[in-house]
């Protein structure tokens, strides 16, 4: 996007400490209030059970620019956004903001359920700093954007979560913001709403609105950001162009996912839990590996060959076994599986011999777009699918190779160019056409 000379957000040496112990955090809160009353500021000394949630963060968001922030959960992204939004103060350092911020941290979270949608719009816009006289002028536009014409006078308590998000988003963008602070809200609501939000954000960006964006989606960050920060344990460990930063983020994700999957099975093996033992009395899943083709790299690439290699132990020979695979988007907790496949449906019942068997699920083309996924693998028996063993919470990273960019899924395809089917000014026999075949 465009870059101008004037920063609208200037963050300098921002650090923030929190206490791990709940009770201590309240005691420290009381002490901090007393210190603030006598004019004492925060120190860099950590008290018992305290840790640095953010450590010496500095960056400038220029007018019209967009900065994406990536990092795993607990890396300090949301804390940073809260400090920039002015919700909490930094322990050390300073934040300068020039312009009106539209914080999209939890859409519609402050709505009062007993009030109608109309009343909540007036209340919400007042809180977001819109002058009272201006609110009626913007109301119709908010109503059109949220598409809640029929239910605007009903209590918000009767709204679905999607309707609340729509109304919250509509309110936030109608505050004439010069800075958007977006924390994962582009991944809530239905697909139609997400597209609408995305287009509206693009429209604001074209008008010169700056944006600070937090998302787990590397694709979204790459598409919407001019610069990227990669945060880990409260530190910015990489800052620069989205392509460069996201590459490192993705590599780290693969390492973490592989370590997580490995440790998941080590824990299973070393901790004899009652429920696990009962499930594993006949059958158990000993290991699961994600291969790219035949290479044991721990990740898949969108559009390329992907393989799952799992080892299943069985105390006795069993027939009519089904191996079921469910893949969930890790960024949308609670959402249904994006992929479900079952061996019983694909190839019929499987027979397992006594001992450790190896099962390979091979996919010629990975259709999943780039991102982080949760994989659940189960072994079931019979027509009613009695569960014999489950491996849940496995992490799978899918990398982008260019084939699935800007797509919801990868569609395997062949491009066929039928050459010159009729030479210029000349009639030829069509059966002699030349076939050029390309494979994506």
């Amino acid at each position: 996007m465009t870059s101008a000379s004037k920063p609208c957000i200037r963050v300098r040496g921002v650090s923030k400490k929190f206490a791990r112990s709940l009770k201590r955090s309240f005691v420290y809160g009381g002490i901090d209030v007393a210190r603030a009353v006598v004019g004492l500021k925060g120190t860099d000394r950590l008290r018992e059970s305290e840790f640095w949630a953010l450590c010496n963060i500095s960056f400038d968001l220029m007018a019209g620019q967009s900065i994406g922030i990536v990092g795993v959960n607990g890396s300090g992204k949301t804390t940073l956004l809260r400090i920039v939004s002015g919700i909490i103060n930094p322990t050390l350092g300073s934040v300068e903001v020039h312009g009106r911020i539209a914080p999209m941290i939890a859409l519609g979270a402050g709505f009062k359920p007993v009030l109608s949608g109309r009343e909540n719009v007036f209340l919400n816009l007042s809180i977001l700093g819109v002058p009272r006289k201006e609110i009626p002028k913007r109301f119709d536009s908010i109503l059109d954007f949220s598409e809640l014409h029929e239910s605007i006078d009903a209590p918000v308590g009767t709204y679905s979560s999607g309707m609340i998000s729509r109304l919250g988003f509509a309110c936030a963008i109608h505050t004439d913001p010069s800075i958007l602070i977006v924390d994962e809200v582009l991944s809530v609501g239905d697909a139609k709403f997400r597209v609408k939000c995305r287009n509206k954000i693009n429209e604001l960006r074209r008008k010169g609105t700056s944006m600070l964006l937090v998302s787990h989606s590397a694709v979204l960050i790459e598409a919407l950001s001019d610069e990227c920060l990669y945060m880990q344990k409260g530190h910015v460990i990489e800052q620069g162009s989205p392509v460069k930063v996201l590459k490192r983020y993705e590599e780290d994700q693969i390492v973490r996912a592989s370590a997580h999957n490995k440790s998941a099975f080590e824990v299973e093996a070393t901790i004899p839990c009652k429920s696990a033992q009962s499930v594993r009395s006949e059958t158990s899943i000993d290991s699961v590996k994600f291969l790219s083709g035949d290479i044991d790299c721990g990740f898949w690439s969108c559009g390329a060959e992907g393989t799952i290699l799992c080892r299943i132990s069985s105390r006795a020979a069993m027939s009519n076994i089904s191996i079921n695979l469910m893949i969930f988007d890790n960024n949308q907790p609670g959402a249904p599986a994006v992929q479900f496949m079952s061996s019983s449906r694909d190839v019929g019942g499987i027979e397992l011999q006594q001992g450790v068997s190896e099962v390979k699920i091979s996919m010629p083309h990975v259709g999943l777009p780039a991102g982080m996924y949760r994989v659940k693998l189960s072994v079931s028996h019979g027509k009613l699918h009695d569960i014999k063993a489950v491996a849940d919470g496995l992490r799978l990273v899918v990398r982008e190779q260019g084939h699935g960019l800007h797509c919801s899924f990868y569609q395997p395809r062949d491009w066929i160019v039928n050459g010159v089917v009729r030479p210029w000014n000349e009639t030829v026999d069509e059966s002699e056409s030349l076939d050029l075949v390309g494979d994506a």
Partner: protein
Amino acid sequence: MLADVRNTLSLSWSLFGRTIGAKYRRSFLGYFWMVAPALVVSAGACVAYDSGLLRPGDTTLPYALFVFIGTLLWQTFAETATLAHQAIEGARSYLTRVQFPREAIILAQACEAFFVTCVRVFVALLFMALTGTLSLSSAGTLLFCAFLAALLGLGISMITMPFTILFSDLHQTIKLILSYGIFLTPAMYLPAGDGLFALVVRNNPISPLMQVARDVAAGVAISTPTEFYVVIAVSIFVTCLGIALVRISTPIIVERMLIGGR
């Protein structure tokens, strides 16, 4: 600074307007609940008085009016003494997600408390009219005393709010004191003798307000003018101190609301 004050006032007025209408929306009796507690306590005290269980001393007013003025002022004070805590707790979802003039939430709740106080005073004025004690001075004094009781409660609530939000033990203790504190005031009886109980009742900060409102209603000279002026000064002082403390402490409180989920 001036723009800050203007924004705060404008927002608090919007919040007040939107919430007062919704407050009793789920209730069939609606605004009756603003005066119901004072009426019920007064009625109970009158029954006890008629049956000889309660000996309030030499009240210069009809007992029903005497006790209604007392319970009205106490109730106003007791409700506003936890007002800031309730306002901050009730606005948790806003506070932890948006930056805005946070004092506006307390101010909006204070506007609501003053509105409720006015309704209660209006009912008291009806009582006064029925008992023939209504005059411009008695009405004005009662309204002023009720306003002072609310201001004193508001100031105390703002000073204690940062600590009651952080330490629920303190909040529970204050709630307990306020639940039974009416018995330590001259709301239903006048203190007799020089014992510890009488000393506490006389030196209760609400006592001079009750005394002055009753004296003016009865048309007699104000018996506790010095104490009354002290209460006025203290009310203004604690309110100013409370506003400063709220401004300083709110970011720290919000931070703890986020991490503690309280």
